[in-house]
């Protein structure tokens, strides 16, 4: 028999691995070692330690603030030490009851009907735009998608302020000699609020309906036509298949409108039309503050957000709209007639005029008016002041840094959360799902209020967590507020990842980190980049959290702009110049990051993104 050279070595190796005398018996060290091996079985040390840390951070920075923002209204004594005089009760419904009376009741009623109307308006405008761009030969349809993102990226307070400056009694239109008080009255009131919130809802509707239309294959229409349905009958048959998209658009529109702070703090406030989010802010920032009342408003806002979600669930209960096709045939675009094209493009033009052109004109023109007041003379004085006055650029740099840090940490955390969410079988992932969903529904101003309640507690000090009124807490709040949305955005691409991609890298010799970096990250690079941009632009111009949590003497950009704008006599123009400059910086940052990705990312990474978009 021929002996193989490796055989002896193999035997020797195996024999050295046998347990030696020290570990042969069931001694204490042996037990500990086997216990450790059991714990570590199939897991890396990083995963073992990282997961509990992730959960601790999640509980501390999302669950506790959310819970305390809602709990305070029924148990003010819990928080009495941080702001004495809030109430001695361990349990009371007084503040909740009070929320249904007086100014609070008016504010929540206003918010409810305005949000409902805005959600409807968003659907009425967004649905045809989605249909036209996805199902017809509308010229220039390729520009609709990026423009919708542009509307989403700009904070709601920016167009609202621009509109105010254009139509208010001494505003731009009056300087231009247009004496239109009817327009001032129309915009500076509920109609204007509904209009602006409705226009802001259009991108959400557009994205939801576009997704619905993408799944609605041509064969469903063909089947109807072949079996005798006319064009009109086919439309009647098909449109209920978009019900999930329509309900989802309505729910998102409503939730976004009712939790909006930008329009509430600008146009609505200046029109003496109080909305719930502003009332909550006022309860905290007025002296003396009434935390339990603010908390009661938070409870009502969260309950209000639940309304459309419940309606959606009820409407779709027991029905499946799952498209059965795995090989959906791409829909045929309808050729628009010349008249159809003119009508469609006019409508689209009007939408862009009201939602982008007018606010851009308002902001730019106001920033170019010298000493906004008597005459209409163009000047760059406000921009000069912006670059030369002390501490006008500081907030810009600060917010750029906050945005970059928050976006980077959020995307990393969002990826971990999305990865945990994708492990559907585990109970912890279902808990995480619920927690993140609840946090998404929580308006920013309620979230920020929760941070004040929580991190102002004496127990935090005793635990050595002295974060209240620091920039660190502000950035943590940005991260915590963005993480739920981020995780939701990333869970789709992460769920679609074939586990075999990572396994293949591991099987071929890559370690855990290398397997992720080589096998998984390139595929996720585009979604990660989009998530980063979404967080960065959101944080860069974020208002409610910044307003409630900024560190004294270190205001972020949005707070500095608000301060300038509120100093109407001297700094209004500088504030507007700052807004215009900030919006330009935000857009430039998006351009630089996307352009950089296009230029620098390996060709293979970019191909993946393109393929998945197609």
């Amino acid at each position, binding site marked *: 028999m021929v002996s193989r050279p490796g055989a002896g070595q193999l035997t020797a190796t195996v024999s050295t691995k046998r347990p030696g005398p020290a570990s042969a018996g069931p001694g204490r060290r042996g037990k500990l070692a086997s216990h450790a091996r059991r714990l570590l079985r199939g897991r890396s040390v990083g995963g073992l330690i990282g997961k509990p840390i992730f959960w601790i951070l999640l509980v501390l920075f999302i669950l506790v603030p959310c819970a305390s923002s809602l709990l305070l209204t029924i148990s003010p004594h819990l928080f009495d030490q941080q702001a004495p005089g809030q109430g001695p009760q361990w349990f009371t419904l007084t503040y909740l009851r009070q929320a249904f009376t007086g100014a609070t009741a008016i504010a929540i009623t206003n918010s409810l009907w305005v949000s409902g109307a805005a959600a409807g308006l968003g659907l009425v405008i967004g649905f045809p735009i989605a249909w036209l761009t996805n199902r017809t030969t509308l010229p220039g349809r390729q520009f609709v998608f990026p423009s919708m993102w542009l509307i989403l990226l700009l904070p709601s307070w920016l167009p609202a302020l621009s509109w105010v400056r254009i139509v208010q009694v001494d505003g731009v239109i009056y300087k231009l000699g247009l004496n239109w008080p009817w327009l001032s009255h129309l915009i500076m009131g509920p109609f204007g609020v509904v209009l602006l919130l409705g226009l802001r809802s259009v991108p959400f509707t557009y994205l939801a309906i576009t997704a619905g239309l993408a799944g609605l294959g041509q*064969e469903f229409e*063909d089947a109807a036509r*072949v*079996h005798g349905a006319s064009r009109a009958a086919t439309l009647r048959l098909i449109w209920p298949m978009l*019900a999930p998209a329509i309900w989802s658009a309505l729910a998102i529109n409503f939730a976004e409108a009712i939790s909006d702070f930008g329009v509430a703090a600008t146009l609505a406030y200046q029109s003496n039309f109080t909305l719930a989010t502003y009332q909550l802010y006022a309860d905290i920032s007025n002296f003396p503050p009434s935390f339990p009342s603010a908390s009661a408003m938070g409870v009502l806002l969260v309950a209000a957000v639940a309304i459309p979600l419940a309606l959606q669930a009820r409407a779709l209960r027991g029905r499946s709209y799952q498209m059965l096709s795995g090989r*959906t045939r791409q829909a045929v675009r309808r050729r628009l007639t010349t008249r159809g094209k003119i009508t469609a493009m006019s409508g689209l033009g009007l939408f862009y005029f009201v939602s982008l052109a007018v606010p851009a004109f308002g902001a730019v023109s106001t920033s170019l008016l010298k000493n906004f007041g008597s005459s209409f003379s163009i000047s760059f004085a406000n921009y000069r002041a912006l670059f030369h006055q002390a501490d006008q650029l500081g907030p810009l740099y600060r917010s750029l840094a906050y945005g970059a840090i928050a976006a980077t940490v959020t995307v990393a955390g969002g990826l971990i959360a999305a990865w945990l969410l994708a492990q559907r079988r585990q109970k912890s992932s279902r808990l995480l799902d619920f927690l993140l969903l609840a946090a998404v529904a929580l308006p920013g101003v309620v979230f920020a209020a929760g941070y004040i309640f929580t991190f102002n507690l004496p127990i935090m000090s005793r635990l050595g967590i002295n974060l209240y009124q620091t920039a660190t807490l502000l950035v943590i709040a940005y991260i915590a507020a963005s993480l739920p949305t981020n995780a939701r955005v990333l869970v789709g691409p992460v769920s679609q990842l074939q586990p075999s991609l990572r396994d293949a890298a591991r099987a071929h010799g890559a370690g855990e980190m290398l397997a992720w970096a080589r096998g998984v990250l390139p595929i996720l690079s585009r979604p990660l980049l989009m998530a980063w941009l979404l967080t960065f632009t959101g944080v860069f111009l974020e208002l409610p959290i910044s307003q409630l949590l900024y560190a004294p003497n270190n205001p972020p950009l949005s707070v500095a702009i608000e301060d300038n704008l509120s100093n109407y006599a001297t700094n209004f123009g500088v504030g507007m110049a700052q807004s215009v400059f900030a919006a330009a910086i935000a857009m430039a940052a998006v351009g630089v990051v996307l352009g950089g990705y296009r230029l620098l990312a390996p060709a293979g990474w970019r191909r993946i993104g393109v393929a998945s978009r197609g």
Partner: protein
Amino acid sequence: MAESISIDAVSKEYPGGNLALKDVSLVVEPGSFVVLLGPSGSGKTTLLRCLAGIERLTSGKITIGATAVAHDQLHIPPDKRNLSMVFQDYALWPHLRVRENVAFALRRSKLAKPDARARTQAMLERVGLGQLADRYPNELSGGEQQRVALARALVAGTGLILCDEPLSNLDADLRERMRVEISALVRESGATAVYITHDQAEAFALADQIGLLQDGRLVQFGRPEQIYTEPATPFVARFTGLSGELAVRVAGQDAASADSTVEIGHDGSALLRPCRARTSASWASGGEGMLLVRPTGIHLGGITAGDHHLTGTVADVAFRGRGYEHAIDISGHGRLTGVFAPFRAQRGDTVGLRLDPAGCHVFPVAARDHAATANGQAAATNGHAAASNGHAATVPLSDVGPEFAPPAQQH
């Protein structure tokens, strides 16, 4: 009432210049079951969609019954063509119940509601789904969804039923059962059926007539037996199942023979002795050709009897229940696959192969794969296949179509 179909010189060009159908002509008799067979991209789906009215013709004419439904200046929309269709993905509307999906096809019948309801229920009972009428499509299995789609196509009693690869999403066992059901139900309805598939076994099992498409052209139209025994082109032969191919030289053509056979010599080929093969071409002595061998055209045996045409080595053997299929390497000439024998020959054994003229077809080496006649019409295999000319790459023995077992195979 069953409808006849006349497709006359139909072409279809998609935007971007993709010519999906090229001058296709075809006549379908009322009440017949026609299967359009071809690989992906051959134009069969486009032809079916043109028939349905979902696609517009670029040129040509389609007549259903006595009515022209499409030509250069005319396009009757799908809902006015009075036909029905089974879609590849079933296209069941997910928000409608099974009953509502099926009843939808009765709208144009203008039946009274109770009548429509009764007819729907009867059709659902017929396809075995009477108990599931109130379910939604997502609550059904793949096979049940398929039955709903079939019921919807049958319920209105239209004279023409179109089927777009309806079995392609089902697993093998269910596919066979559904094939039998479709065949029975459609024939029972008396309607004319046009059915498309890329699966030659499915086509042979279902069809009264088969139309074979390649690159947008109809290359042969005829009964399944004719397609199998008299393939008009090497493509038709390859697509309907071969054991392999062999470069040969024709020794002479038997002019007296009724079935156009040729004598093939052994010069320059793997053949040890001359054999006979079918042909549709005229041959001069010494002409070079490709011998395309069906699995039915090879008999495996030993080499001692000395009546074999080829010898080879068993490369692989697979048990197929009723016997064994072998892959045989012909030294220097590639491999023959699907060689059936009731006994197992061992791997590595040297075996003798006898060729049966009924399963051997010889084409000129330069035979063009499109068996187009001068006017572009398909070769109608009514006993005389179209003449082939043009060119094709000479391929040594290959393993095309090993899995296809034709209906007439006997061992």
